């Protein structure tokens, strides 16, 4: 596979799966915060 194809592979993986991982991490953190808030109340 040509170098340019490898570069696009890395870019796509970072953008697409990075975006997904970011969304999931935000959701997990906000759920945890909501749970700890509920426990405190």
């Amino acid at each position: 596979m040509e170098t340019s194809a490898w570069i696009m592979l890395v870019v796509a993986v970072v953008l697409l799966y990075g975006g997904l991982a970011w969304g999931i991490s935000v959701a997990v953190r906000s759920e945890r915060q909501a749970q700890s808030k509920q426990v405190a109340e």
Partner: protein
Amino acid sequence: MRERWSSRTIFIMAAVGSAVGLGNAWRFPGMAYNNGGGAFLIPYFVALITAGIPLLLLEISIGKKFQTGAPSAFAKIHKGFEGLGWWAVATGFVIVSYYTVILAWSLNYIWSAFTVAWSGGAEGYFYNNILQITDSPGILGGFSLPVLGTMVLAWIAVWWCIRHGVKSVGKVVKWTVLLPVALMIVLAIRALTLPGAIEGLNYYLKPDFSALLDVNVWAAAFGQIFFTLSVLFGVMIAYGSYLSKDSDTTTDTVIIAFADAGISFLAGFAVFGTLGYIMHTSGVAIGDMSIAGVGLAFVTYPEAISQLPGGALVQVIFGLMFFLMLFTLGIDSAFSIVEGVVTGLVDKFKWNRSKTLLAVCFAGFAGGLIFATKAGLYWLDIVDYFTNNFNLIVIGIIECLLVGWVYGAGKMRAFFNETGTIKFGKWWDLMIRIVTPLALLVISVMWIIENINTNYEGYESIHLLLGGWIVVAATIVIGFVMMLFKDRNRHIPADDKPIGVDG
């Protein structure tokens, strides 16, 4: 009390299941190959951020805000736009009537996989044994019994999956989302370990940056994003309507959109790894193969399966895996569309949900009978081409303008930002009011120009008129007619009064 999703995860999975369908597996990889290879990922990503996520967020938020299906939701924005919701729902109904036929083909192939029945020639098996195809759309030739029989099964499966509304959807999506992704990963790994696979991947990922100067490539990227997210036919509005008022739609939207894009990208590895293997073993160039759509799924891929090394058992296992993946990819998209139709009807007329679902399934089956004839593939192709390219695009333009300018993009943004962890800035307003409708307008103008000059796929004008423009017109008429019926027991909370009427 309105039904609710049993958990946030279940809602996300249901929405991902709806968005991820056959198009992710058979449309995206071929589209990337034809539009600059790896360079296509740049306009695709731009389209995802500037149009896909804003539009998906818009639809889920409309559902959550008004707690009702698309027609009643649009009526609450402006009484005169209820018809837009019905038009969207009617378009979804047309789409699901042929989508289930593709599921029926997949069911046939799951059965055929036990004997690798296509090994004598995949093309002949599909067109002669399964479709029993005639020479023209004008020659219906009666029903193809294998298709008709499995079409009944497909509709039973759709009915079964949503028979108890979002409760049963919640149970089913655990399988229909995770299973196809797991199968796709296995198929991709198998493909990448075949000889010639890396060469195939090179075709998929090697960038041709000059393609970025071509407006058609950008139109293809935006088109793919609009078609892949299950927006514009009332599904996401219906799914959003089962969310509670405190749900975090902004973060959920980001997850759904990126999951959809990620699965599309993954599919490319299974497809192009396999195409590379065919190229390696038979010497056929990738440009000479069917690399997208029906041809890829039911001819090229089966052909590759029958050439897999390791003997008959390996071929049976991978045949089963591939067609089970196709079926499970499609079934949750199909039942989400039916759910959108049922939600629209039940919310307006307060009909019994179970009976409405049964009636919609029967009507969908009856409407789809034309696609189970021996000329079904032609009609499916024509109807799909027109409903996808005309209806969805025009609905999208009106929907964006309605919310962006009539309801107020800022007002909607304030609504979803209130409970959303990821906050969307004013750029979202700009996307919904100008960029997304403009992109849709450009795509529709290009499409109309293309179709004025040439008949799609060389079909006769009469067939394009019948399967294309008359179906388009019928969905518009249905939209207007449904709007004329009065709601039963309609109650509009004070803060949800139609703003175009007296607000």
